[in-house]
């Protein structure tokens, strides 16, 4: 039995119903979990299955479908040299998750970035404030209902028209 299969069986044994689905795609395994069980799952994987490195932590927005957000964790095991993905789905009314900072301290900035870009707050986080956008920015840019901010390109045919309304600095 491979390392990843052992880890998945460990999760199924300890967490039971909280393991919703196991997806294998192009020989990469992803376990879909209940949002309340994620910290337990990572602690188990870190202590008993040698997954000691949190490689990536990100989020995906599925607006307007519900559940709206999917949080993606990628764990890596240095002794066994395998990656394992964990997915958690949360809805937009209840956009909150327990923090992973106690299990893997490097989740600190990753969770701040998710808060900044998606508006998902993490309870128990030591320092939840914006990290990449200016600290008084309104809105969460990577959400699907946030506009790209696309500006009209100044081609030759509309050069003068845009030139008139472009705010040039005088001095």
């Amino acid at each position, binding site marked *: 039995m491979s390392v990843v299969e052992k880890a998945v069986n460990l999760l199924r044994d300890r967490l039971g119903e909280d393991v919703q689905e196991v997806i294998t*795609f*192009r020989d*990469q395994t*992803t376990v879909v979990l209940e949002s309340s069980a994620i910290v337990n799952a990572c602690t188990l994987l870190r202590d008993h299955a040698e997954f*000691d*490195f*949190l*490689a*990536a932590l*990100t989020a*995906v*927005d599925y607006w307007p479908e519900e559940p709206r957000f999917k949080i*993606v964790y*990628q764990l*890596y095991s*240095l002794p066994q*040299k395998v*990656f394992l*993905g964990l997915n958690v789905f949360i809805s937009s009314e209840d956009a909150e998750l327990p923090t992973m900072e106690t299990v*893997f*301290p*490097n989740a*600190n*900035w*990753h969770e701040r*970035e998710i808060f900044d870009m998606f508006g998902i707050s993490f309870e128990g986080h*030591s*320092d939840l*404030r*914006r*990290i*990449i*956008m*200016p*600290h*008084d920015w309104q809105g969460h*840019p*990577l959400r699907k209902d946030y506009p*790209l*901010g*696309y500006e009209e390109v100044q081609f030759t045919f509309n050069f003068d028209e845009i030139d008139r309304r472009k*705010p040039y600095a005088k001095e």
Partner: protein
Amino acid sequence: MLQEQTDITVDELRHLISDRALTGETMLLNMGPQHPSTHGVLRLLLELDGERIISCIPDIGFLHTGIEKNMEAKTYEKALVMTDRMDYLNNLGNNLCYVLAIEKLVDLDVPDRAKVIRVILAELQRISSHLVFLATHALDIGAMSVFLYCFRERELILDIFEMCSGARMMTSFFRPGGLWRDIPDGFEAVVRDFLNAFPKRIKQYEDLLTNNPLYVERTKMIGPISGEDALRWGLSGPPLRAAGVAWDLRKSNPYSGYEQYDFEIPTGTNGDVYDRYIVRINEMRQSLRIIEQALNNLPGGPVRSDNRKFVPPPRAELGTSMEAVIHHFKLWTEGFPAPKASVYVAVESPRGELGCYLEGDGGPKPYRVHFRTPSFAVLQTLPMMSEGFLVADLVAIISSLDPVLGDSDR
């Protein structure tokens, strides 16, 4: 137009600075985004007791270009152009990570010749990135001549890139399925010249710095970190290897044919600034070994996959074959579709683990692209590493971690 920004007040940061700052006993100093030694636009809020740092709060985001959201608006191949500009010292490495993710997602094969050339160019890029590290690191410590020497060598590598792709830095040379075009005729000769000339140059840099008592005094036992701490805090790449943990993605999860090459992983012991410098110097030597082995075993054949659903046909075919015209039309107007699934691919960039999380939705544009960049993870450890040291040591620590702010802010 300028958005009037209010500055962060001390109240919001109270949990990060010590109580002595509120009484005025220690000084809060802003090491602003524009500073000669912050390696880009990194803002640090330092709490200083004289010259000693009590705490250091990094403030990033001054180079945030919204690349991830912008890539969602372009097709897969057009979005490749934006990956060059993320970590601007490792353009081909970023291309490689994204292209490997696409190839994994749509299950596209890559010919062997393309894999070997990818390895050669990625290792050359690694050497050029380490040269810039050495140049700026030595410049921060005060050795200005090393800066000029390293940039002189880097010009040789940039000439090679320009010969292949036409651009010095933003090459976008790796495409889904292989390379953009085959390497030109004089490539092997130029690379062999470089391989012959470079070891003497590395020796020149080592003569200047490695046993120099001034350099050793400024870098030994500065900013040390243990192996377990480094792993818990998400360090990877040369800072982690300098702390003693021998993890290199090229050896543990090889990609693009790295398992065929014989090279070592240099490690250090203390995880301080000096060890990180030694690790990077030795990595340059190992890269030369890899390039030589790859060049000796360069197979012939095509450089791009011929799966016409994803790779455009060569222009010569358009005159004769109707399917070629149809494929060309579809790829140029719409792009190729990807399945509704997600992959995560990690490569070893000169700074650490560069990972790409790519999610498709059945359409021609990526639904979500996220890059797990090493500089973002590395800058997190800066407060921990710099506590108790002088401001001049902080400069050495930042330059030894080798953050690239385009990488960190995306």
